């Protein structure tokens, strides 16, 4: 008997796709929906929250100047980190994309390696580097810039520098991919037609790498806006971002509804950024 390779596969396909469906519905979508619903509940010190419907958590976020500042500084830091990462990552990606020697894979590995060590390791590296007896302070004292160690930690600038360090690889690879997928004859063609290198870059290379820029930026912005550990360790009390606020609201004041409201705002921004990314890249393809 000969079997037809095109035979119906419905039953087998649903068996294959059911584990992930159950897993996502039960442990991702349902709990997150419930958690976001909690943002409309009332806060109660005794029982964490009382189910009901109130918008007071949201109005507190929008009208209380403390929380307004947290939201504002989160998006400001995320935007600054995204822009700085974009400039540096573009330079790196351009360099790697134009490389033809055997060094490329090693240099690529050196960009991926920090990514794999985890956020804690990279944040700790900055603590060691910038601490009062850290390398930077020592070098400055050696050169005679300063007489005594300076407090470099617990500043917004430090948080931004460390976040750029953490996010840079995420930005390099999408841009690298969009640069290497370009037709290699375009720039020579433009220069043949009389375009100077700078103009060829601005009018050919840059616009064609838009999809990589948009993807990297969306990724870096959302990851930065959601960061908790880096601002908590490097920024201390002075720098507060939404992720930290959620962490502290839930773990130290047990105000779940307010924490959930902050998280809801974060997710909302995330989805806005992602939908913007999909709209932008659809036009590119």
């Amino acid at each position: 008997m000969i079997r037809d390779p095109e035979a119906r596969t419905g039953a087998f396909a649903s068996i294959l796709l059911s584990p992930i469906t159950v897993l996502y519905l039960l442990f991702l979508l349902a709990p997150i929906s419930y958690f976001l619903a909690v943002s409309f509940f009332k806060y109660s010190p005794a029982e964490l929250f009382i189910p009901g419907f109130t918008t007071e958590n949201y109005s507190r976020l929008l009208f209380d100047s403390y929380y307004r500042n947290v939201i504002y500084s989160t998006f400001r830091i995320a935007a600054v980190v995204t822009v700085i990462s974009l400039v540096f990552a573009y330079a790196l990606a351009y360099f790697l994309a134009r490389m033809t020697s055997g060094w490329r894979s090693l240099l690529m590995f050196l960009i991926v390696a920090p990514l794999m060590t985890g956020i804690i390791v990279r944040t700790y590296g900055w603590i060691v580097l910038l601490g009062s007896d850290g390398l930077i302070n020592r070098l400055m004292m050696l050169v005679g810039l300063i007489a005594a160690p300076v407090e470099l930690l617990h500043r917004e600038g430090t948080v931004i520098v460390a976040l750029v360090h953490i996010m840079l690889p995420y930005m390099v690879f999408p841009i690298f991919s969009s640069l290497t997928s370009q037709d290699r004859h375009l720039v020579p063609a433009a220069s043949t037609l009389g375009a100077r290198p700078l103009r060829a870059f601005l009018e050919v290379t840059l616009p064609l790498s838009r999809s990589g820029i948009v993807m990297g930026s969306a990724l870096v912005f959302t990851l930065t806006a959601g960061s908790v550990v880096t601002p908590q360790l490097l920024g201390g009390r002075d720098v507060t971002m939404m992720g930290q606020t959620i962490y502290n609201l839930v773990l130290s004041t047990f105000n779940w509804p307010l924490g959930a409201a902050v998280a809801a705002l974060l997710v909302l921004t995330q989805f806005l950024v992602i939908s913007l990314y999909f709209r932008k890249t659809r036009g590119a393809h």
Partner: protein
Amino acid sequence: MHTDIETSPLRREPVAPQAVGQLPVEPKIDLLPLGRRAYSVLITLLYIFLLLPILIIVFASFSPDQRNTYALSNASLHWYREFFASNNFTSAFQFSLWLALVAAVLATIIGFITAYGIVRFTGRGRNLAQSLVMLPMMVPHILISLSLLLLLTVLPLMELSALIIGHVLICLPFTIAGIIASLEGVDPDLEAAAWTLGAPRWRVMVEVTLPLIAPGVLSALIFAFIISFGDVYIALFLSGPGVTTLPVEIFSYIQWESSPVIAAITTLQIVLIVLFGLFVERLVGLRTAMRL
């Protein structure tokens, strides 16, 4: 009419015929207002910026005393001894290894089954399926962690199982995407042949396809292990007495004090991860595994 780019009158100079996979000679391009030299300096500085914070930890771990010294002349293994003598760090390290192994194995098995289902059977809905599967990457991890913590108040689950589920969730997008990429290199005719010869679908999947993409599956496994081992956000809320991962233990320690013992631990972690990374690089290439 056939015009060949090599003989096109627009070209100023003839280009040597290319070997397959070779790129044409690059014109001299300077990036923006930077000259070649300034550009090389910038790239070098960026590499230092990327690697210094990690290398500095390795140096600091050999400090002879509480202060970070970076001279290798008086290097000591004092902090490594300190680490092996500390109960909470060694047990957190062991727990992290165990958790990462369990999460990686689960994420790879589910990832393989899902990837196979998506590539072979979703047909026109494939793009949608592939986007939906990426869901855990699209929500902040802190939210996944908090939601699972909330779930514990409703479902009679153990903290440990919530932690494992959380880690499986964040690893899945990577394992699925990595295995999908490997599956695309498999000739469907090989499967069709086995199927025509009477093998049931699941046997085709396990005995024909799986061996063909073994390197891809192995790298997905290692990669999931790396992600799980380095995670701090999921474990941040789902840790408890006896179920604390190494990154969370380190986080709660360095919030209050800093000691080179942390440098010693993270150095061991860096060495472990970099070895794994090199292994994946050998297998399939890291960028393929990371879907970047």
